[in-house]
Each structure stands twice: as C-alpha cells, then as structure tokens.
C-alpha cells in the first residue's frame, strides 16, 4: 500500500525536482479542459517518468517538506540511509526525526536562519538513524516557491559522507603518525625517479638537511650534500644498476644547507615495473648523535687498551667460553714457550695443555694431565690467586677474577724477586734458629756441670770451711756465665725476624705486680719498700707477657740494686687512652749520670755506677730496649726532679681498647710530674 502511494506521488515530486514552475503550471492547467491537458500531459509524462526513475534510484536521500518543514516526500535512498519507512517519516520534522546529541548546534542554527529567510543552505551534519547508528550527511536544501514566489516547501538532497569522513580522518591520523615517527626518529623519506631524475624529499628530510619543508632539489644538488671523498659511495647507493641496488644501506657524512656537518644513514630500495627499475625510494636518518657516541665509546675503549698495554703486568681477559678476548703484550712475554699459542680466540685449556706439554710450567713436568685439570678447575672457579713457577725459574702470581657477566680477568705478576727474598729470609731465619739452638746447647750444657756440681759441692762441703768459698765462687761464676749466655741468646732472638713474640691481651698492672711479688725477697734483703702499681687501674696491652715481665724484672732489679738501703721504689701506671700506656719505675738512688742516659741501653756499655762489681752483664737494658721495640714501644731513662732514676716503659694502645672503653686522656691525678715521656 505504501509503495503504491509513493509510486503515484513520484511523478509530481520528480517534476518539482527538475522544475518547480512546470509542476505549478501543470496544476493550473488541470482545471482546463481535460483533453488538452491530457495531450500535454502525455508529452510531459515521458520526461517525468524518467525524472522519477532518477529520484527513485539515486544513492542520495531526497526529502521534500512543506513550508512548515513537515516531510511530504522521501525517496528509497532516504529510507535506506535513515532506516525510517516513508510512512514513518511523512508529516514529521526532519530535524526532530534525525538530529541527535552529537549534531553540531551551530550548524543547525545556521540552517534554521537560512531556511527561515527562505535561503539556500548547504552543510555537513551528524544524524542518527532509526537503529541509533550515527552517520554524516552532506546536505543541500533549496526552498520551493510557486509561480507567485510564495514559499511552498523545501527540497533537500542528502549524501551519506560517513565513509569519506572516516577515510579522511584515518588519512590525517596516518599522516600525523608518519610525521611524528619521522620527527622523533630523525627519519625522513625520499624518492628518485630513474627516468626523469626528479628527486622528492619529505618534509622531515628537508628538516634534517636544513631546508624549508617542501624543498625539492635536483639530483646534483642532493649529491653535493655529500663531501667529495664520500660521494662515490652515495652515488653507488643511488645507482639502480649497482649490484646492491635492490636494497642498500650506507652511512655518509653530509653537509647541510647551513654548512652543518652531520652523519646520515641512507637506505635505498629499487622499485620495478614492467621488468625495469623505475624508482628508488628510501629513508634518510640523522645519525650524528649515534656516531658521536660510537666515537666516544671507541675512544674510551682505545684508552683502556692503551692503558692496559702500557702497564707492566700481564693482563688477559677470557670470555664465557674461556677464549681470549683481550690480552696485552706483556702476557705473551711471560709465557716464553707458549707465546705462539696466545692469540685472540684461543682457549684457556688449549694454551695451558700445550704449554704444559712443552714444559712451560715447572709443576706440570711429568704429570701434565693431572696438572692441567687442576689448573683448569682453579681457572673456572673464577676467584683464584696462586703462585706458579715457570720453566726458567721465574715465579708468577696469578690472580683471576670472574666478572658479573661471566668473563674471567687475569693478571700475572712477576714475584720472582719476592719469592727469592722470602726464601732467603726463611733460610736466614732457619740458620739463625739453628745457631741459637746450637749455642744454647753448647754453652749451657757445660754450665749444667759447673752449676750442678758446685751446688752439690756446697752441700757436701758444709762442714769444711776451706771448700765453701771455692764452691761459692764456682757457683757464682757459673751463674754469671749463664746470665750472660741467656742475655746473648735473647739479643740474637730479638734480632731474628718474627716469631720471637707471642702477643696476647694482658694487663700491664698485673704483669708488673707479679714481678714485684717475685722480687720481694731481694727488696726485703735491702730493706726497700716497693710501692704499686695500683692493681685497680687496668692497663690493657697486647704483648708477649713473658718478655714484658723480663723488661720489668730487669728494670726493677736494677732499681733494687741501686736504691739506698731502706728507701722506697715506686711503680706507677698511666693510661693514655688511644695514646697507649706508661709504666714508670722510680727509685731514690743516686740517679744516672746525664751523659749515660742514652748509652746505658747499648750492649756492654755498663754504667759507671755498675762497674764496682754490683752485678750485671751489660746486656740487660739492651735486651729491654729490643723487647720494647719489638712491641712497638719504648724504654727511656731519666733523672727525677727530686732525685733518683726513673725508667719509663711505653706501649702502644691495644686496638679495641683505644676509643670505646677508655678515656681519651689520662685522669689528671695520673699526670705525675715525674713521668718524663709524653705522647
């Protein structure tokens, strides 16, 4: 039914489309005689049928409204585009029917103003179909007037331009994308027509080469960007006949339009048509920054190589497959028999195995396989330090370390001199130990008879007055001799290298107090009062207690020997925090002649005050000084202000006690004026 109604309406509508005036005329003449009218109508009908066919079949939507803009006609294209059947559209306002939220309000307003004024309007608006799909139409609206010029309606022809708009948007996006990637990557494009020689640059290429966008050079101008020495390479890259023409990629120095030197990467591909090359196309990239960075890296690597080549130690780097990736000449020089094996790419195991077979390594002789597997295992452990003797007697220290990425870095340091010096020192040490043992035995063993028999003699001769002085003298002589021998042995032990001391954490106050106790009978015999040290004031030291007691014993025995009968001797300790500890022994004797304050420590330089036969071998203080020096300490002699001699021992602070538990400075009470040594 609807289709039939449309069909009858088609001729009139088509007439209006082609010529509104003709339709009006037709209507006017309808009142006139039917026959005449029919005759005319037959003529027109043929034209109108053709017009109706066009309207029916056009892809554009056609809408006709009355003056109040109510739809009076739509074509099939309208129905297809909008989804509304003609019956649904008739009588409706097109705007109310089709506009949606996305429709541009300004455009609608412009349209309204134009139509109100009875003017033509054209524009593009977003509409919504019946199923909700949105689409763009380009529309052209014309007012329809009757013969009298009165507005009777509007005719609108509408094209669906959705696909075109989408394609345009996609093209714009694609162009923007290309432009941005080219700009960001510093990549431009170019084309060269082989027939005509015409060159095309993209804007990005123009920019890279300091030209205004749009610049199109000749081929000669383009080639001139490249300095003469590099130009042949550029020519070859652009030559479609060249071997590489199907695709080439070169890096070239360029000079830009502004005289700026840059590096570019020129990639080219040949396009073929009908079996022949027609066009070269490609990319042009600014790689100046990358080249600069590469040059920088190269320079640094070269510097490192030069530095390693210059150092006097052998250096080598193996990769993760244990092949040499770097070595300096010194490394090759070390291994005289395997020199020819050492080259880039050589495997570690091959070098040492062939070297071992040739007798390069002293320790491998006669057991090459075992030695090689031990050596390779050490090498693979990646954290090796070992000493290796070569066939010519030289000793190498081998240091190998694994890098985080699995390379092995190796050093070879010639320690031949060190090994020989150590061996010599060890030999000397052994010789000295042997000497000391021999001397001890040879000198002390005879003293066993002298001292032992004289002691027995003294006992058995108790009732025979004439023998007593003899045995007494033999015993005293033996003991003096023993003291001298012991002293000589001590001196030579102290001069030996190391091993003489076994330091432990001790309290110097306690060590001194034990000596005081030990010598109390000797002091009592002379009626001496020995004071101190204060046992409550700890004096922590890291020392060989036996040796330090030997010093204290010697010093205290001297004081006891020289102090006037009935006088007192004072031992005083002092803690200097990180500055070490002091122990002084002060007597009230005659003191030491000023000229002898230093010489009393020399061997056999007995003080004038001891030459009266009061004992001593002349080695006691020499040994004391050697012991103190072996501990990093000192012993000094002085005369106290109030008379008497003061011997002061100083020992360095022990490591842990330096700061934490002890005061930084000694308490004021301990800063006695008679302690002559200050830190």
């Amino acid at each position, binding site marked *: 039914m609807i289709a039939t109604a449309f069909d009858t309406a088609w001729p009139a509508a088509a007439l209006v489309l082609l010529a509104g005036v003709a339709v009006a005329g037709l209507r006017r003449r309808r009142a006139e005689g039917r026959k005449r009218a029919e005759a005319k109508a037959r003529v027109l009908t043929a034209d109108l049928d053709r017009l109706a066919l066009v309207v029916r079949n056009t892809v554009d939507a056609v809408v006709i409204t009355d003056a109040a803009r109510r739809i009076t006609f739509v074509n099939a294209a309208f129905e297809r585009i909008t989804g509304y059947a003609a019956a649904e559209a008739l009588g409706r306002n097109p705007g109310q029917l089709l506009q949606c939220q996305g429709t541009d309000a300004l455009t609608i307003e412009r349209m309204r103003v134009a139509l109100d004024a009875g003017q033509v309007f054209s524009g593009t608006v977003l509409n919504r179909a019946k199923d909700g799909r949105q689409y763009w139409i380009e529309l052209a609206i014309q007012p329809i007037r009757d013969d009298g010029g009165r507005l009777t309606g509007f005719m609108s022809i509408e094209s669906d331009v959705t696909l075109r708009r989408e394609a345009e948007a996609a093209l714009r996006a694609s162009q923007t994308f290309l432009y941005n990637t080219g700009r960001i990557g510093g990549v431009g494009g170019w084309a060269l027509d082989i027939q005509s020689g015409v060159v095309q640059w993209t804007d990005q290429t123009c920019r890279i080469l300091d030209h205004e966008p749009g610049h199109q050079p000749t081929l000669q101008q383009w080639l001139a960007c490249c300095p003469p020495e590099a130009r042949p390479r550029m020519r070859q890259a652009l030559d479609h006949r060249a071997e590489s023409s199907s695709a080439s990629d070169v890096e070239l120095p360029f000079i830009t339009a502004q005289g700026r030197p840059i590096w570019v990467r020129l990639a080219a591909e040949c396009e073929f048509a009908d079996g022949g090359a027609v066009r070269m196309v490609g990319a042009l990239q600014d790689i100046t920054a990358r080249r600069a960075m590469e040059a920088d890296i190269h320079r640094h690597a070269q510097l490192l190589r030069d530095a390693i080549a210059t150092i006097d130690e052998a250096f080598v780097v193996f990769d993760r497959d244990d092949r040499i990736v770097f070595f300096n000449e010194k490394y090759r020089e070390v291994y005289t028999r395997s020199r020819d094996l050492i080259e880039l790419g050589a495997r570690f195991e091959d070098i040492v195995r062939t070297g071992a077979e040739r007798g390069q390594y002293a320790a491998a002789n006669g057991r090459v396989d075992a030695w090689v597997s031990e050596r390779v295992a050490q090498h693979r452990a990646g954290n090796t330090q070992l000493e290796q003797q070569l066939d010519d007697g030289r000793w190498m220290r081998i240091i190998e370390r694994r890098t985080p990425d699995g390379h092995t870095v190796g050093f070879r340091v010639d320690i031949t001199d060190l090994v020989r010096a150590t061996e010599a020192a060890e030999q000397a040490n052994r010789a000295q130990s042997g000497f000391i*043992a021999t001397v*001890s*035995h040879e*000198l*002390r*063993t005879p*003293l*066993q*008879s*002298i*001292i*032992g*028999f004289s*002691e*027995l003699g003294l006992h058995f001769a108790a009732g025979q007055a004439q023998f007593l002085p003899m045995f007494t003298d033999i015993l005293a002589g*033996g003991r003096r001799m*023993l003291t001298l021998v012991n002293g000589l042995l001590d001196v030579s032990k102290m001069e030996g290298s190391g091993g003489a001391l*076994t330091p432990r954490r001790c309290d110097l106050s306690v060590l001194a107090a034990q000596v005081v106790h030990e010598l109390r009978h000797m002091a009592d015999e002379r009626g001496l009062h020995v004071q101190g040290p204060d046992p409550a004031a700890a004096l922590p030291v890291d020392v060989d207690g*036996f040796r330090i007691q030997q010093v204290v014993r010697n010093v205290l025995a001297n004081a006891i020997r020289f102090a006037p009968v009935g006088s007192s001797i004072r031992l005083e300790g002092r803690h200097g925090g990180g500055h070490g500890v002091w122990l002084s022994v002060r007597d009230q004797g005659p003191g030491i002649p000023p000229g002898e304050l230093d010489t009393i420590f020399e061997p056999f330089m007995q003080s004038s005050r001891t030459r009266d036969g009061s004992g001593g071998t002349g080695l006691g203080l020499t040994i004391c000084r050697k012991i103190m020096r072996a501990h990093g300490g000192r012993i000094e002699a002085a005369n106290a202000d109030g008379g008497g001699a003061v011997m002061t021992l100083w020992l360095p602070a022990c490591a842990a006690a330096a700061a934490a538990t002890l005061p930084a400075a000694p308490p004021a009470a301990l800063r006695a004026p008679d302690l002559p040594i200050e830190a």
Partner: protein
Amino acid sequence: MPPRTVLTIEDQPDIRRLIRMTLEFKGFTVQDAGDGREGLALARQGRPDLILLDVMMPGMNGKEVSRALAADPATAAIPVIMLSALGSASDVEAGLQAGARAYLVKPFSPWELLDKVAALIDEARV
C-alpha cells in the same frame, strides 16, 4: 718399699754423673744410658719408676725416644722428665707433646731435679 729406680738417658757423661750423684744421695737407684736406643732397651727391660731424658742427643733424639716409650704398652706408663738446654715456650710445649710429663731447662739445680723426680714418682704411685 723397694728403692725407686730412675733411668737417665743422656749423652753427656758429666751430666749423667751429676744426676747419679744427686739421686743416689737421696736413695734412688740410678741406671744410665748414653743414647736413645740403649735407653729404650733398658726401659723395656728394667721398667724404671721414672725416666730422665735428654732432648738433644746424637742418633735418636729425646722426642723420638719419648714417642717410642709412649707407643710401647710396657713403658707407656713410666713418667718422663725431659732435660734440655732449649728453654723457649715452644720447646717446652714440643717436649710435652712428645709425651714428657715435665720439662727441666738446663742448667737446672740438683734440688730442683730432686723435687720434680720425687713429685712425679709420688704422683705415679697414687
């Protein structure tokens, strides 16, 4: 109580005489050996109450003799006093490690020797 027997193993004749005189004076029975081998044989044969052993001797030295004594069940229980002119702490330690019960540094006093001998024999009897 039978007389207590002390074996002296010492290469120096004068020191052997000194020790003999000292110990006999206090009622000990003394046997002498001039070297290690002879001393070992006497020790196995005579089972003395105590052995005085010199360290530095030609041939078998005192430490070797001490270890041999300790290794032999027949002599392992006999206390040994080492005698040596070497008196450093490490020398003493080495002697004690070789099995000696005491270590006397030469020259020692006869009275010191008697004290040590008596003390060790008493200890062994207990």
